[in-house]
């Protein structure tokens, strides 16, 4: 069986899984465990890498492997960009490895594919994603990328996150490593801004980043680069000149930030832009890191302005939402960040599910919500009855619970169409929750049929 050399950097992966900046690693050996056969949901490392890097719209993203990896995943995420050239984010490039390539090796095809891309497109960089099959057949992706990079005078970055090395989270970390090694520090800016920051871990899904980036800029903060929402290759190459790294609602890139602190002396803060309180606190955390009284004063003024504007807009919804009770069932940081946002629009969050949350998220969730629960299937219906809940916010699988209990439902896991981020997004959340509460459909569809006993 063991005839293949698997091109995986075991040491790097072990280090990433034992990240010292991860709170759970202080107490437990590791909770970033291997997935269990037959009891696993969620994406693989490749998907994590893809999610983290695809928002670079000015780079071509070439997946080196057979169909499934890309065929099923391109053009699926609403990560918006303001890039004026050809937007590569919703496009799919794949070497389509076939039987012949598996026998003879895929390096030639990869090299030809890179030439084709350079000839027909005008990317600022090319990311090459290794997949399980090309890792197993031992393609020398690093070498092929290096040769092509020198030939075309263009950054061509190999991303070693084949699906089988682990979860989505690990894939994001590996993508961060690739960016750190191949891009960051490769370009010097004309001027260095005194309040320059990098936004790490926000992928600008539905334009979330655009809800708060202009506010930061009004305060006087300069965004040097992003990883990777509305991101640019040239900008991330200058990321080492920022004064602060801001991790937005994502724990997976904490290793990158720790290494940037070691290598470039850039400190980092971790923030969330969901809800009014968290948005204001996020702005304060960023500004306070600079320790500049003028900047802080300006920030407070703008926070006050934005909060007042928001309250005015929220007033009509508050009337409708007053006294409404909700249960939240979602994963990761959403188990507390959305709870906080719901509280900000006047909803009482009775309970939140921590089934898919990390230890760190569970700790935070407990600060926001009185009840946290582990098994939604059994506890959700009971909690709805006990607390007279009005609305369930969960993934599609819980819809039937809401119908059976005849309460309103908001799908929080569905690919959202509008942003719930920062001050502006909070109004969108209020609109969606109000629309659900007012909708007669949840009571109607649960009605028994004329031929059924009532």
């Amino acid at each position, binding site marked *: 069986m*063991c005839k293949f050399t698997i091109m995986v950097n075991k040491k790097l992966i072990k280090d990433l899984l034992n990240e010292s900046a991860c709170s759970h690693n202080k107490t437990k050996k590791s909770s970033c465990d291997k997935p269990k056969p037959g009891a*696993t949901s969620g*994406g*693989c490392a490749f998907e994590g890498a893809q999610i983290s890097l695809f928002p670079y719209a000015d780079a071509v993203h070439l997946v080196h492997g057979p*169909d499934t990896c890309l*065929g099923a995943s*391109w053009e699926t995420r609403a990560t918006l960009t303001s890039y004026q050239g050809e937007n590569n984010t919703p496009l799919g*490039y794949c070497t389509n490895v076939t039987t012949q390539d598996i026998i003879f090796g895929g390096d030639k095809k990869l090299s030809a594919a890179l030439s084709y891309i350079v000839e027909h497109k005008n990317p600022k960089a090319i990311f090459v994603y290794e997949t399980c099959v090309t890792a197993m057949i031992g393609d020398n992706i690093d070498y092929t990328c290096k040769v092509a990079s020198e030939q075309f005078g263009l950054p061509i970055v190999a991303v070693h996150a084949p699906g*089988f090395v682990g979860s989505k989270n690990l894939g994001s970390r590996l993508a961060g490593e690739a960016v750190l090694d191949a891009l960051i520090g490769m370009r010097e800016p004309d001027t260095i801004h005194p309040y320059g920051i990098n936004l790490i871990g926000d992928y600008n899904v539905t334009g979330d980043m655009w809800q708060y980036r202009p506010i930061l800029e009004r305060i006087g903060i300069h965004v040097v680069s992003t990883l990777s929402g509305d991101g640019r290759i040239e900008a991330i190459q200058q990321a080492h000149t920022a004064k602060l790294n801001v991790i937005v609602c994502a724990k997976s890139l904490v290793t990158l930030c720790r290494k940037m602190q070691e290598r470039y002396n850039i400190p980092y803060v971790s923030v969330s832009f969901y809800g009014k309180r968290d948005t204001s606190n996020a702005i304060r955390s960023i500004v306070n890191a600079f320790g500049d009284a003028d900047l802080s004063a300006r920030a407070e003024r703008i926070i006050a302005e934005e909060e007042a504007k928001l309250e005015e807009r929220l007033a009509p919804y508050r009337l409708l939402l007053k006294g409404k009770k909700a249960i939240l069932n979602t994963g990761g940081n959403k188990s507390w960040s959305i709870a906080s946002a719901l509280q900000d629009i006047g909803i009482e969050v009775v309970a939140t599910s921590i089934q898919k949350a990390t230890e760190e998220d569970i700790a935070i969730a407990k600060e926001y919500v009185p009840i946290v629960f582990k098994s939604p299937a059994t506890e959700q219906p009971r909690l709805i009855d006990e607390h007279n809940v009005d609305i369930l916010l969960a993934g599609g699988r819980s819809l039937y619970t809401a119908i059976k209990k005849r309460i309103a439902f908001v799908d929080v896991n569905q690919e959202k169409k509008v942003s719930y981020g920062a001050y502006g997004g909070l109004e969108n959340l209020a609109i969606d929750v109000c629309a659900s509460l007012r909708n007669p459909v949840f009571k109607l569809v649960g009605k028994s049929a004329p031929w059924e006993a009532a």
Partner: protein
Amino acid sequence: MSTAFSFKEAKTDTLKPLHVNPLKLSQPMGATLAFLGIKNCMPLMHGAQGCASFTKVLFTRHFNDPIAIQTTAVNDISAVIDGGERGISEAIDNITKKVSPDLVGLFTTGMTETKGDDIKGATLLLKEKQKIVYVHTPDFEGGLESGWSLSVQNIVAQLITPKTDVKKAKALLIPNVNMSPIEVEKLKEAMEDLGFEVFALPDLSDSLDGHLGVKQGSLSGGGIALSDIEALGDAGIVVTVGRSVQKCGELFLEKNAQAKHVHCDTLMGLEASDRFYAEMLAYLGTCNVPNSVKRWRARLQDVLLDTHFILGKSKVLIADEPDSVYSIAQALREVGAHVEAFIAQRSDIQEEFTCNVRIGDFEEVEKALPLVDMLISNFHGERLAHRYHKALLIRGFPNYEQVGVGLRNSILYEGSCTFLCEVNNLLVHHQSSQ
């Protein structure tokens, strides 16, 4: 793993070293759908967790319904030290701890085929614990259609008990992967109206038709029962629809040589519908059809005439799985439309096309688009249709934009009427808004 080099493939496949905006979906995805058409079944994908996750997300968004699927979650260590049986056995243990599937559909991916896992051996070892059908579906070969077809072939071969007697009115219907849940139901009804007792294998009309059910997607929500599959051996007739599943019918005859195999490449349009009824009536030895069939045929005749003014002058580009493109192309050709076709993978049906047909990706589609009036493709065509100001009809997988995709009927006399009217009206609407 087949290693034969196909000259035909080299000649007709795109010669690019990559796919840009791929049209193709993979074999394991086709296998997933096939097993979702069996009641209380758990599709188990033997590969890294991502293969199953991507597949689950795609079909969940396409059908707007929960999708049952599990994975053996092969990791970089078990990829080297395990021949597959440990991971598979562990997966079966973990699945049966939570649910009791009637059947587990075990199928491979590119990675587990590259390492050469013995899934047959693993299935035999677990025989006492769980009923399993195993299928080899590497994603570096074939595509959605072949993944579905290979699964059905293996279900037929591994599950059906051979028989020598037949029940004349018992029919086995084998649809291709492109048929919507409601099309399977309509076809079953059409045959039931002729007096058949019909079993569809797989039967998505009961599982992915978008009905409100109590199930939360831990196992397939409906479909043909395992006991019904095992007892299919005495079916008097097997009807296969679509070239990709023709072989499934041939394999069925090995279970019962007395059965008759009727194959239809398509059921769209007047000629195809006529041929279907001619075959059914010849088999039954009758000329009686329900009145509604006669009425729908007459309506289709009228629709053909009503739509030929617009469609007869239109140029349509179709990009989808081969059987789907062939069906749509044949229906549009009946009213004189000019058709350009792109197919996702190589197929025997290529020989039958009466229009230009190529294997390609959306980059090729984009090049051909300026010369046509309308694009028929999956939702990835939307961006292109907008950019080039073309009418768009969304067909095929995936369709993230629209709801009700499982309820769309384009087959036989009735469905062909709906289809032709829809295409006609979209073109008119598009022309008037230009």
